[in-house]
């Protein structure tokens, strides 16, 4: 088991290297370091010396992949890519292009991100599973058909509609919650309630449909009939037997997401002004702060890989038939 995990983790290294390669290639194709310098120094009165100083301060004055000025191996290692990539692997994200420490920023922003993402995730999971079980309980009846149609209709609506509509209705018209913003600590619930609600509601359509299919598949299996033959009521059959087995395939899709919750939600955070990592990333893209973008991409990749690993572990834990070979 331990050996298996270590092997998986080692396998992550080439993936992360590949991720870095793609990020660097893409971003330096977009912007030369000169461009970045100009953005960050502002438009007025920017001189060549200032640009040079800016690049030197961030190590952007080295060539990207191949340094013809250095000899031997150094030609490949004394490059922007190798130097910056290696730093990432030690989780030393350095300073953002505007000079703030990225790790400190991430630490500051992960709180709000998690405060939004975790309740949305858990509540969404709970709501979707409950609804799906309820629908399966009334399967092949009018309730089921109506729920299915409703789910498809809800799926067909762009998430942006939910957000815009929710803000107008609950904040502007009904005055229930603040339109946007955030407060650290306990007061945060006031700001989170609407985005969480919208996050959950916009996810119901696809969630309900997907879980319903999974549960329906389980409901027709032999062991469910056994459970019924034992005298279990329909509700308990679903709750005790179908749910556990139906959750197995759900695990694959769900566990992999858990670590990436950390990254926050790009759109939600921006719309609701929640100072999390999602809006951090968007700001970095829009402001073309490469240092942040590469850090976030790297972090995202690491979390994704952890998610895959967790999925394996969760599977082994939840399904006694699966053991690591």
């Amino acid at each position, binding site marked *: 088991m331990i050996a298996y995990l270590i092997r998986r983790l080692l396998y992550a290294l*080439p*993936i*992360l290297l*590949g*991720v870095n390669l*793609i*990020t660097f290639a*893409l*971003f330096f*194709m*977009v*912007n030369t370091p000169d461009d970045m310098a100009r953005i960050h120094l502002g438009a007025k009165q920017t001189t060549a010396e200032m640009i040079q100083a800016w690049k030197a301060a961030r190590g952007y004055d080295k060539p990207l992949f191949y340094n013809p000025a250095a000899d031997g191996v150094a030609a490949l290692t004394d490059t922007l890519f190798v130097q910056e990539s290696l730093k990432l692997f030690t989780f030393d994200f350095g300073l953002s292009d505007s000079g703030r420490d990225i790790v400190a920023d991430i630490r500051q922003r992960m709180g709000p991100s998690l405060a939004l993402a975790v309740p949305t995730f858990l509540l969404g999971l709970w709501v979707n599973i409950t609804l799906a079980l309820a629908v399966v309980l009334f399967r092949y009846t009018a309730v089921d058909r109506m729920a299915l149609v409703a789910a*498809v*209709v809800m*799926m*067909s*609506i*762009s*998430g*942006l*509609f939910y957000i*815009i509509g929710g803000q*107008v209705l609950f904040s502007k018209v009904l005055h229930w919650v603040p339109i946007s913003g955030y407060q650290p600590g306990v007061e945060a619930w006031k700001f989170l309630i609407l985005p969480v609600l919208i996050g959950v509601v916009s996810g119901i359509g696809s969630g309900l449909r997907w879980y319903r299919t999974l549960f329906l*598949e389980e409901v027709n299996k032999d062991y469910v009939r056994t459970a019924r033959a034992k005298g279990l009521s329909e509700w308990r059959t679903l709750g005790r037997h179908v749910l556990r087995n139906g959750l197995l395939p759900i695990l694959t899709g769900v566990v992999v997401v858990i670590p*990436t919750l950390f*990254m926050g939600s*790009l*759109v939600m955070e921006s719309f609701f002004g929640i100072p999390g990592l999602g809006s951090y*990333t*968007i700001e970095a*893209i*829009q402001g*073309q702060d490469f240092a942040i*973008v590469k850090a*976030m*991409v790297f972090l*995202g*990749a690491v979390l*994704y*890989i952890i998610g*895959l690993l967790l999925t394996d572990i969760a599977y082994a834990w939840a399904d006694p038939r699966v053991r690591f070979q």
Partner: protein
Amino acid sequence: MSLVVLWTDALVWLLVVMLTLWSRVALRDRLVRERWQQVFASGMATASALVLLAYVSIALLDSLHFRLADGQVRSVLDLLFSHLLVQTERTYSAPFATIEYVKSVVQQNGTLQQVYQPLHHVRPDQFWPDVVWGLVTGLSVTGVLWLLRQRFSRFFANSIFARAPRRTFWFTLGLIVTMLSLMWWLSRDFHVFGTDKVGNDVLYQTLKSIRTGVLIGTLTTLLMLPLAVSLGVMAGYFKGWVDDLIQYLYTTLNSIPGVLLIAAAVLVMQGMLETNPHWFGSVEERADLRLLFLTLILGLTSWTGLARLLRAEALKLSQVEYVTAARALGAGHGRILLRHIVPNVMHLVLIAVVLDFSALVLAEAILSYVGVGVDPTMNSWGNMINAARLEMAREPVVWWSLTAAFIFMSIVVLAANLLSDRIQQVFNPRN
């Protein structure tokens, strides 16, 4: 007047030709044909397919461009709705309104006054005549088709609609045709969905957005499919180092947060377009190229999901008896892949295609919000929603752009979803 072929035009027509050929070949197989007939035995599926067909037809009409004498590039759809291009107002007006939405200062009798200015291109007295004409045209076209159905009876008997519920078929067809004709007639004398900030007709924008949506949905899939199918199936079938390599590739791509990857790629693309201005001669061509690249990027980043699915399926199939049997009987890898594996995963591909279509239409809106969507000069639902965000904050609210985009977008996504549901139901080997 000369034909202008934009890149995406060429591709989308190529897609149509390929689909037609493929369906003719595929439907020759009785089993396949029966499967499809079974799909459309459901009224819901038939209606959905007709709706999708209507969208695709509008997109195709909008993908046939001409250069007019005055040098403007226009599509057939533009020509059909040419009146909407001319009938622009000054600023916002509500659907079917006769006056502008906001007051403006005008000089009247020597003094400046604040009034609701009348719209230029609205004739309120024409409402009922337009409705009548719309109904008459729509119903008569449907009627003529219905009368001609005997002529097409052979076509019907063999087509995939052979077992479609006739009443649903004709009702949906009639409804679509009538709605379109009503829209056309009314749009001559009214702004059916109002006008936007600079007085352009919203109905026209919405209709033009159909092409963008459909193209993103279909072309992306077209570009993604070969990659997803070949890599996914190969990984699952060959296993070993081929599998390792392909898995490495898609795990790496997958582990980059999607929006970041797309955003970066779009920015690269913009840079490329900037440094190569000779690739395009006009605004339309530029926007078109950008759309093409966007679909390319979406295709390159979205193949991983399907590939993963296909890999798992191919892995299962390669263990299945008849594949083993084929191998035991000495069939080569290529032959097994083409004859035994690929046909047996096609239902997955199909479902993925239809579902992806709706997902991509939705994704376009989000991408436009992040600022990496289609060209801002291009009509698209994403751009409309994006603009509508500001309009929703107004008091009184300017709701029609959002509503128009919402209606048109939801209908197509809904149709695609319902159809994919049905396909899944019929093609799923478990049922």
